[in-house]
């Protein structure tokens, strides 16, 4: 797994006023890799994603894609070949499933307003090619039967898959998935796992934020752990799994010894008192 990295973020820092959401994070994704980004809630994972895709302009640091520095403009990042999905699904709700994917092809087609008004043969050819490509992607994600439905009417799991199909329509070299299995049942999660593997086999590297550890450890070649905006560990799944600091970051540091008898009694008394006063109040 050597060669030039696909994506290289160096020293990315993002400050909002006095709050430092991401502090000097380095991250590399190499071609053909699936890289996991994990960490407790509020660790700055999505903020880092937004820095990588140009939604935020990082306060410090640079992001390069295939060796070229990315400008902090979302549409230029997408044009360069990085596509993403969103943690809270952001489909074009009132467009059909097919249209959603066609919008995803925006960067890979050139037809402007004049061409649309004139409707020459080149326009028809491009539209047909786009539609064909979009249909292929819908078949790939298992949504072929739904192409005429409105995106908003899809069930939740299919909306997530449509977001992935839409992101793939831009023919990205790197796909950023923000919690692709959030809210899914185990079967849907397994299906998403297979989908991500299939995407990797198509030659697209994947950077994925996820809370489902089984998902992460099944799929990822490398995992990066973010805690409070800083990179805690980076390495293979085994390295990360064995690292005690990761467990501590997720579950909190254990007490120095078991909680004493006194504290337990104190808590119980407080609870009783609260229950009583509530009863009197009624």
């Amino acid at each position: 797994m050597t060669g030039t990295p696909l994506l290289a973020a160096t020293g990315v820092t993002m400050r909002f006023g006095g709050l430092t959401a991401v502090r000097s994070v380095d991250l590399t994704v190499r071609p053909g890799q699936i890289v996991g980004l994990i960490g407790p809630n509020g660790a700055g994972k999505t903020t880092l994603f937004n820095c990588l895709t140009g939604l935020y302009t990082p306060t410090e640091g640079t992001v390069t894609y295939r060796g070229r520095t990315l400008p902090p403009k979302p549409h230029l990042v997408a044009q360069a070949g990085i596509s993403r999905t969103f943690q809270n699904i952001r489909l074009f709700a009132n467009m059909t499933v097919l249209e959603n994917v066609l919008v995803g092809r925006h960067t890979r087609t050139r037809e402007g307003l004049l061409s649309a008004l004139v409707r020459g043969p080149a326009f028809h050819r491009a539209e047909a090619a786009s539609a064909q490509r979009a249909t292929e992607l819908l078949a790939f994600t298992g949504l072929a039967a739904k192409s005429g439905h409105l995106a908003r009417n899809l069930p939740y799991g299919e909306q997530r898959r449509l977001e992935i199909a839409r992101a793939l329509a831009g023919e990205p070299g790197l796909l950023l998935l923000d919690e692709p299995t959030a809210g899914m049942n185990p079967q849907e999660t397994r299906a998403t796992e297979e989908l991500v593997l299939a995407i990797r086999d198509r030659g697209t590297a994947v950077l994925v934020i996820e809370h489902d550890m089984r998902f992460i450890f099944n799929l990822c070649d490398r995992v990066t752990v973010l805690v409070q905006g800083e990179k805690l560990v980076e390495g293979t799944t085994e390295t990360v799994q064995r690292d005690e600091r990761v467990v501590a970051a997720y579950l909190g540091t254990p007490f120095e010894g078991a909680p004493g008898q006194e504290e337990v009694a104190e808590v119980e008394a407080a609870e009783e008192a609260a229950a009583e006063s509530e009863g009197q109040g009624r």
Partner: protein
Amino acid sequence: MTSQQSQQHGTAVDTTPVIPLPLGTARVLTAAGAALTVLSTFLSWTWTDAFPGNLTVTGYPGGLQLLTLTGALLTLVHLLAAWGIRGLRMLDPAGGHGGTVWTAAGTFAATWYTLIAIAVQLGGLANLEPGGWVAGAAALLTLTGALALPLDRRATATGTARGRLAAVRDIMRTLHPGRTGRPLPPARPLPGWAEILLIAAAFGISLGVLTYGIGTRYGELFTGFLFLTGFCAAGLHQAGLTTRLAELTARHRNVTVAAAFVAAALFPLTQDTDEYTLIIVNILIFATVALGLNVVVGLAGLLDLGYVAFLGVGAYTAALVSGSTASTLHVRFPFWAAVLTGAAASLVFGVVIGAPTLRLRGDYLAIVTLGFGEIFRLAVGNLDGQSGPSVTNGPNGIPNIPDLELFGYNFGDKHSVGGIALSPFANYYLLMLLFTVIVVLVFSRAGNSRIGRAWIAIREDETAATAMGINAFRLKLLAFALGATLAGLAGTVQAHVAHTVVPEQYVFAGPVPPNSAFLLAAVILGGMGTITGPLLGAALLYLIPAKLQFLQDYQLLAFGAALILLMRFRPEGIIPNRRQQLEFHEDTAAKAEA
């Protein structure tokens, strides 16, 4: 039978009639009522011809009686179709009584409106002749019978409505039959020529109805006409006829477009005076500008409250280069050059205004565009050589704009082409129609392309759209510029039709359309993102104030009320966009899919 059908489709449909009567009785009652209503229109309704339209003649119907007659006949036909009479089945593809109920309600509304108007205007019920009483009773009888017919309507929500508004809500539900989302059974296949003939007939009828509406000579007749057409259009929709027509037109797109164009082009031939041709030229200008605004509002989702300024830029530019004696530029461009100049000026103005403002979103954009609209009006009002450079003649505007001349064809003269006499306004009408067709083409082609999809994506979710590689700012500017150009195009013709341009034509809100508020109202009323919507909305918003003079003082109030009602009951506009129909009536959409 209806309930069985609906069960097959898996939707819960309540078919209980509003008035509990046996089906046979209800049918006979409706039929008898409708027949009696038809007869009553041949009687005299009042004793004096002081009420407009002369309803005193026994022997043949006149004036408002014609509306009642039409409504009653339609009711009868719908009833018989729903009854299953051979040969009429195709008039009721939905297979329910929705059509009958709505046409009966339309007849009732038109008839009772006439009777009340007579009583109010002539001072008392004593002014009604027996014929009038018969008509009123018969119309009521028809409606009663129709309401006793089994009605398709959405099943009552679980539990009965409670609270003070329960009664109101129940009535609303009763008045709101249909919308069961039940798909129509497939149509019997017809040969291609027959389908084309049907489309032509539909456009012929629409042209006839529109011509009649524009030609109504007094406010009462127009109000009655609005009642009847409103209800009957709802009736035809309930019967499934509009859906059928939509299927047909979708199959024969080119024929439909050609038929619409021919029907529109035939309009001046139905007129012998210029009075109504002028009205329809103005409607076309208004509609074209509304359609341009629809690119900005309906597709890209940018709320522009100063859109009329672009119309003004086009009109002023055309006026300045028209060779008018009052113009400060003493040049006379040929028309094609004037059109290009006007459109280009609007384009530049659009880009200049759009570039700084389009970085704003939502309400902020609305406020800034509103400001720019006013700035335009004030600026042209001050460029008079005293408070500013002498360009536009200030508040006096530019009068004496000469008539257009194209290849030696002077638009101000009467012409006879192949034996058909064309008045000056008919000339302008045909020219404006050409512009409307161009704008319709631009709208539909731009909307249904990569650019159009990007606009809709920006409207839906700008952040997601940019993440898909869409340069939101550039595309919004493109929509703004395209909208401005289309408005400027219409403006160049408007200057010549009106022969004069003054700043006060281009206000935010005023009694005479087009102004920014009315343009936006036309788009929203008609249906955002559609082509027919703004055209229909513009026609209504122009005709209603022009015809209902007595509303003058309360016009804006009435519009406000109408818009609120519309937003409450039909938020997607009169002609719904396929998407928004699904968006605002999700429950029915879900049922239709089930």
